[in-house]
C-alpha cells in the first residue's frame, strides 16, 4: 500500500529542492514513520495530509532536524544532509512556522523579525538599521505593518504572517507551515494564502499541513498522503476530489466494511422519540469555535459526532457541558430553558463529560485511582460532606472490578496506569454520578483493542438503560457501530444530522465530510 515516490510525473521538470527517501523513525512502542518519502519542488505549494497519528508531525520534525531519522536520507538541492539540530536545517534553508505562534508578543514587530541576528554597531544593537531592515522585509512581502509597534498590537493572523516573514528572511528555500490556519477566521486565511502564493511565485517550496480540505484544493499544487506512518502516495491535486482524498487518508479498506458494519452493529434499536428530548440545543454557538447548531438528544439515544480533527466536534460538545460558555443560542434541558455557565451547573443537571485530553483535562495525575474516581461525586457534595473512607474504598473496589481497571489497586497513582485504564478511571468517575447525559470525547483513542471493545459495549448498555450518550470519535466505523444518529461536522459547522437506520456507510459519512452537503 505504500507506493514508492517516483513514478508519478512531477508538475515541474527541475530537481526537487528537498527530497526525503525511506525515512524510518521509531519511538518507544511506536513506529511513527516507516519508509516515508517526500519531494518538494521550487515554486510549489505541497500539502502533507493524513489523519491524526499518520506521522505528519514526525516527518516535519525529521525534515527540520528536531529528530534524526533512524533510517533514510534527507537531501537539499541534491546534496545529502544530516541535521543534528534545528539550527542546521535553518542554515540549509528549511524554515518552519508552527501552529502556535512562537514569537514574543511584548516585543516589537521588528525585534521579532530579526531577533538573534539584529544589526549591531560596536556590539550594541543598531536600532535604526534594525527598523529599516524590518520595514524593508515587510514591504517586500507586500504587508502593511508598523514594525515599531509591539507584536501584541496585531491580531493572531497578522502574528502568523510575521512568523512567516521571519522564517522567509532566513533565506528560506523551503517553508514548512504546520497547521497555520487552525485558529484563523476566513478573511485571515485569505490574507495568509495571498502571502503564501507570493512566496510560491518567488520560487519558495512550501509544505503545507492542514486539516481543512477546502484549503488544500484552494492553495496546493500537489499532495503527499500519509497513513499510519506509511506513505500512501503522492498526487497532483487535479487528480483528486475531496472524496478520493479523504479515502486515501482514511484507507480504502473502508469500502469493504459496508456489510460488516451492518452485522457488527451493537447499537440497540433506536428509542421511540420521547415526548421532550432530554437536551435540546437551538442555534447554540461560540464564535471562533463552532457555528450555530441545532441538536436534540433523547434519553437512551446515542448520538455520534463525526468529522475530521479540528472540525469542531469537541467545541460543539463543550458547549453542552458548560465547559465553554455559548455566546449565542439556547439550551433546554427537560424542556426547561437553561444557561450552563460552568461545568458545575451541567453536573447539577446530571450531564457528564469525558474530555479527549485525558492528561490535561481529566486526571489529577498525582492522586490515586480511588481519589480520581470519587472526585466528581465528592465535588458535587462539597468538602464538608465527605464520603467516608470506607465508602470510597467500596466505590473504588466496585468500579475497579466492573470496568476491569488494572492494576486492581485503588491506591495506585493514576499517572502510572496505561491509557486505557486511565480512560476507565475517568468513565468510572462519571458513571458514579449517575448521569442522564454522558458526553464521551474520543474515549477510545490511543487505547488497546480490548479496552476499546469494553468501552463500546458499555456505551451500548448505558443507552439501553436510558442514558443519553454523545459519542465523539475520529473513527467513523466506531461512530456508526454505536450511534442511533450521527451529526457530521465540517469546518466548525454541523452540516448534517443523519439517522443511522437504515445503517449509514462510512462512505456516506466521508462524502458528507468532503462535500459538506446533506445528501
Amino acid at each position: 500500500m505504500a507506493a514508492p515516490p517516483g513514478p508519478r510525473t512531477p508538475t515541474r521538470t527541475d530537481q526537487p529542492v528537498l527530497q526525503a527517501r525511506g525515512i524510518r523513525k521509531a519511538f518507544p512502542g511506536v513506529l511513527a514513520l516507516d519508509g516515508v518519502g517526500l519531494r518538494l519542488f521550487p515554486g510549489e505549494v505541497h500539502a502533507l495530509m493524513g489523519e491524526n497519528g499518520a506521522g505528519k508531525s514526525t516527518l516535519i520534525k525529521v525534515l527540520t532536524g528536531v529528530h534524526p531519522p533512524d533510517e533514510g536520507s534527507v537531501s537539499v538541492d541534491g546534496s545529502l544532509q544530516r541535521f543534528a539540530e534545528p539550527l542546521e536545517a535553518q542554515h540549509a534553508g528549511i524554515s518552519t512556522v508552527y501552529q502556535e505562534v512562537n514569537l514574543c508578543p511584548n516585543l516589537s514587530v521588528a525585534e521579532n523579525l530579526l531577533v538573534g541576528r539584529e544589526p549591531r554597531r560596536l556590539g550594541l544593537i543598531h536600532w535604526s538599521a534594525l527598523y529599516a531592515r524590518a520595514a524593508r522585509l515587510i514591504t517586500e512581502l507586500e504587508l502593511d505593518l508598523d514594525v515599531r509597534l509591539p507584536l501584541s498590537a496585531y491580531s493572531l493572523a497578522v502574528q502568523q504572517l510575521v512568523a512567516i516573514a521571519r522564517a522567509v528572511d532566513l533565506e528560506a528555500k523551503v517553508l514548512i507551515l504546520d497547521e497555520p490556519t487552525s485558529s484563523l477566521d476566513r478573511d485571515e486565511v485569505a490574507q495568509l494564502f495571498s502571502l503564501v502564493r507570493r512566496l510560491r511565485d518567488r520560487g519558495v517550496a512550501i509544505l503545507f499541513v492542514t486539516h481543512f480540505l477546502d484549503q488544500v484544493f484552494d492553495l496546493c499544487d500537489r499532495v503527499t498522503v500519509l497513513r499510519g506512518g506509511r506513505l500512501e502516495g503522492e498526487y497532483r491535486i487535479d487528480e483528486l476530489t475531496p472524496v478520493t482524498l479523504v479515502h486515501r487518508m482514511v484507507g480504502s479498506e473502508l469500502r469493504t466494511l459496508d456489510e460488516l458494519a451492518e452485522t457488527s452493529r451493537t447499537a440497540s434499536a433506536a428509542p421511540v422519540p420521547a415526548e421532550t428530548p432530554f437536551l435540546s440545543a437551538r442555534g447554540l454557538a461560540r464564535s471562533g469555535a463552532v457555528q450555530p447548531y441545532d441538536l436534540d438528544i433523547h434519553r437512551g439515544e446515542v448520538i455520534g459526532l463525526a468529522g475530521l480533527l479540528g472540525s469542531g466536534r469537541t467545541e460543539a460538545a463543550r458547549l453542552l457541558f458548560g465547559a465553554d460558555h455559548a455566546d449565542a443560542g439556547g439550551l433546554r434541558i427537560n424542556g426547561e430553558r437553561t444557561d450552563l455557565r460552568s461545568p458545575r451547573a451541567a453536573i447539577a443537571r446530571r450531564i457528564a463529560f469525558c474530555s479527549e485530553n485525558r492528561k490535561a483535562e481529566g486526571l489529577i495525575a498525582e492522586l490515586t485511582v480511588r481519589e480520581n474516581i470519587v472526585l466528581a461525586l465528592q465535588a458535587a457534595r462539597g468538602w464538608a460532606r465527605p464520603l467516608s473512607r470506607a465508602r470510597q474504598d467500596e466505590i473504588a473496589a466496585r468500579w475497579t472490578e466492573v470496568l476491569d481497571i488494572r492494576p486492581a489497586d485503588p491506591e495506585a497513582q493514576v499517572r502510572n496506569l496505561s491509557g486505557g485504564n486511565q480512560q476507565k478511571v475517568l468513565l468510572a468517575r462519571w458513571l458514579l454520578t449517575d448521569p442522564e447525559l454522558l458526553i464521551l470525547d474520543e474515549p477510545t483513542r490511543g487505547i488497546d483493542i480490548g479496552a476499546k471493545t469494553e468501552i463500546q459495549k458499555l456505551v451500548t448498555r448505558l443507552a439501553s438503560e436510558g442514558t443519553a450518550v454523545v459519542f465523539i470519535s475520529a473513527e467513523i466505523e466506531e461512530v456508526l457501530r454505536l450511534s442511533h444518529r450521527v451529526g457530521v461536522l465540517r469546518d466548525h459547522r454541523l452540516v448534517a444530522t443523519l439517522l443511522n437506520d437504515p445503517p449509514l456507510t462510512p462512505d456516506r459519512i466521508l462524502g458528507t465530510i468532503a462535500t459538506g452537503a446533506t445528501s
Partner: protein
Amino acid sequence: MTPPDDIGAGGRRPARAPGARRLTRHRLFWPATFLASLLLGNVAFTHDFFAVRVQNGHLYGSLIDILQFGAPLILVSLGMTLVIATRGIDLSVGSTVAIAGALACEHIATAKDPGSLPTVLSAITLAVGVAAAIGLLNGLLVARLYVQPIVATLVLMVAGRGVAQLITDGQIISVSSSAYKMIGGGYWLTLPFAVLLAAALVAVTSFVTRRTALGMLIESVGGNPVASRLVGVRAAGLLVMVYVVSAVCAAVAGLMISSNVSSADGNNAGLWIELDAILAVVIGGTALTGGRFSVGGTVLGALIIQTLSTTIYTLGVPPETTLVFKALVVMAVCLVQSPAFRARLSRRRRPAASAPAVGDAGVRQQEVHP
C-alpha cells in the same frame, strides 16, 4: 510537574530489601532522617542536648526550646502548606505576623486594665479578625481577579509592614499583661503554652483536611486546575479559604512572638518568616507546583529550620557567618530531597549501570495514537 519525592527516580532499582525501599520511599523519610541526624549531631557538641529537666513544674531543655521557639514558624508554615498545595504562595504572612502583634499590643497597652482576661481576649479577637480580612483580600485577589498569587500577596508583604508601623506609631509597644504573656511565654501542663497551641492547630488542620474532603479537593485544584473545573470543584471558595487560614495562622504566630517578648515591633516581628515557611513546606515534601501536601512533612521542615538556628547558636558560629552556614545546610537538605540529584549520585557510584534516558523532550509531543 515534579514528581513527589516518594516516587524516587522511577525505574531505578537498587538492590535493597523491599521493606527498606518502602521506608526510604516514604515521603517523610528524608525530612525525618535529616532532623534526626541534625539532633544527634548536636549531642557531639552539647552532651546534655537531649536532657530535659523539670524545674518549678515546667520542662526545660534544648528540645523544649526548639519546640517553643519553633512554634510560630510551624504555624506560619502550616497555613503556607495549604496555600502552596493550591499552586499558590503567600508572601504576606510576615507582615500579618507584625500587624497581629501590633494590633494586640496596642489594644492591650491602651486598655484600662491590661492584665484582665477580657482585654486579652478582645485583643486576640481583634488581631485574628483583621488577619482574616487580610486573608480574604488575598484570596479574592487570587480567586476572583486572577491576580498571580505571588503578586497578590506581595502587595501586603510590602504594604503590611507599613500598616503595622502605623498601628504602633513607629514605636515598639511594650505591654505588661500576665494573661497575654501566657500565649507565647506561659506554661500549661508542664509544657510551653505556645507548643500546645501549635500542636492543637496542627492537629485540627490535619483532622479537617483529611477527615473531610477538603484535603483532596485542595490537592485536586493544585494538581490540575483545568480538570478540577471540569469535574465541578468550586476552586474559588477553596482558594479564599486557604488564604484566610494562612493569614489566621500567621496572626496566631504574631501573637506568640509579641507575647513572648511582651512587645510589638512593627519593623522586625516576623521579618522573613514567609521565606522560612516556604522553605519548611518544601523541605517537608510539598512541591511548589501544588498538589499533594503533607502537614506532617511541613512540621518536620519547620523543626529542621528551627533546630538549625538553635544549633548555630550553640555551636557558637560567628554571627556574621550564621546565614552562610544556614544556606549551606538548607542547600544540602534540598539536594538530598531531589530525586534527580540522588539518581545522579547513585549513577556515579555505579558507573556500569545504564544511565536513565535523558528523555528526548520532543517525543512526548508526538502524535502517537496508533
